[in-house]
């Protein structure tokens, strides 16, 4: 069984695009599991921000899945195509990574 992830790729000043990846689907797997699988098996350049992996404690893996803002670590994979995009209201860093730190906790402020 496969789940298909359609992932937005790009960075400011680069041509952006969607790339599609088929990832193994197992009951209970999450979108973050799928993204980590892609990095290990296809493309380690794929940029995602996460820290706690599974505990929903760090709140860093916030992205858009099918147009809804969610945590990748608690959103289950489904046996269909899912569209993953960076948060639209945050400054883009690369791929699914956006600038989500409070302004006074960033380097450039």
């Amino acid at each position: 069984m496969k789940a298909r992830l359609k992932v937005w790729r790009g960075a400011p000043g680069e041509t952006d695009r969607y790339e599609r990846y088929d990832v193994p689907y197992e009951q209970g797997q999450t979108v973050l599991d799928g993204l980590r699988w892609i990095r290990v098996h296809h493309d380690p350049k794929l940029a995602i921000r996460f820290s706690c992996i599974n505990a929903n404690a760090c709140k860093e893996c916030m992205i858009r899945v099918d147009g809804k803002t969610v945590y990748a670590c608690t959103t289950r994979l489904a046996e269909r195509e899912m569209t993953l995009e960076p948060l639209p209201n945050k400054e883009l860093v690369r791929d699914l990574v956006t600038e989500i730190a409070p302004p006074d906790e960033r380097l450039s402020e």
Partner: protein
Amino acid sequence: MSKIDGPKPMNHLGCDVLVIGSGAAGMYAALAAARAGSRVLLVDRSLIGRGGATVMAQMTVAVALGEEVPDHWQHHLADTLNAGRGLCDEALAQFLCEQGPACIRELDAWGVGWARRNGHISQVQAPGHDRPRCVYVDFVNTGPAVSKTLRAQLQRTSGVRRTGDLLITELARRDGVCIGAHAVHVASGRQIAIAAKATIIATGGLTRLYARNSASLNMGGDGYALALAAGAELLDMEFVQFFPIGHLAPRLVGMDPIMWDPFRYKLGGRLLNAERREFLGEEGRYATARDHATCAILKEVADGRGSPHGGVWLSFEHCSEAELRAAFGPIIDRLAANGIDLTRAPIEVAPIAHYHMGGIRVDADMRTAVPHLFAAGEAVGAANGANRLSGNAITEALVFGRRAGERAAALAAVTAMPGVQATAQTVGTKRDMNPAAEIVRLQALMNQQVGPLRTQSGLERALEHIMRLEAQCTDIGRPRGAFDAEWLDLHDLASMRLVAECITRAALARTESRGAHQRADFPQTSVSWQRHQRMRRGEQGLSVES
């Protein structure tokens, strides 16, 4: 001299005290240094107060408050030393137990919200303790509450600049003295030089080295790698604590895999093998120390009495729905969302890499062997010996963090501002490997050969692989640009490889079994091995001394 607020793009930062890592140890260190008058720069490779282990800690904190029953730090110390199997640094362990109450009460005053019962702070009894001593925040919210409270205090404290997305790649030294650090700003890929009068490593442990771990992404031991490269000593690297009852199945998302611990404090919970028999002799209580429970579970699995996914069963089926609801609160609903109903079926648990007893060698002032370099929290070695007592990790983070901050500030007050040159590294060359995949391979190998049960042949096999990786991990250069995920993995692979070598060499050298270090080929604890192993990095590579 460079100022904290420079013009853009600024590739230099300066501060009195640089704190690396923003878990409980780093945040408390930053607070203590700022209270003592230092200008502090608190950096984290992740976001401030969100990465690291503290925010994930869903369990309890050991401290001799005497709120539940009379207690004294000496009783806490006796339990800590006993759990440490003869290998605790007694001065550090005593400091932890003695200063714990002051730190816990300070957090209470800051509104952390320790659970209360009949008007006093509630304390529960965890395995290895002689009395109810462990405080917590309901429901499984201890770590997030501690993290949030310290972060709120930092925001109220002037003199602390907090900067996330800043990965320290090397400590800067002049004439052997630590004068700051070199960093990569992850979000932009820029290289940053940081001048600091004193530096504190508060980067936590190394449990990401194992396939089954309860760690966050940034627990790959990079603080140990930084310390080694700067000339500091590491102690007792072979002692990796496996938490015996990490969640195994069914798949559970949105919860820390060590979540079952506090519920066992409250409800007992029966640990059963495939024959549905309690094999620890606990009779529903929760009393077995972590090292013993881990071995017992692995033995059940090895003898063919494991659960379907290779662990054992943890059952709360003897509890009524009302009891479960009272103990678990809203967690019951989160479990239901994962398809788990504790009244109807047990779950599967198995040992999971959880904490590292070894670490950077410090004195009671948290000073390393490198002048002007301090360490705090889990990054520090030997306070917990060969096996950490339940609940000592957050206490240690707070107590050691506060002390490191105070001592670093005092040193900074009498130190002139150093200058640190920016490095101009080139972009790393293309390698014929996927570093994310290599990390997964290393984790699998460490779990299998350098995990809770070890043999000489397994350790040697692991070391062979680790040494073959070395050539792939040198001269990684700088990132290609903003959030270069491949470069980040390569950086992590390099420090994980080095730290894996430390653990494996130390484990090979220790020809006995003690606490978390169990050798199938040397099952006895040996009196002659009641000593620490020190590790340094020299011209000839790593050296181990005991």
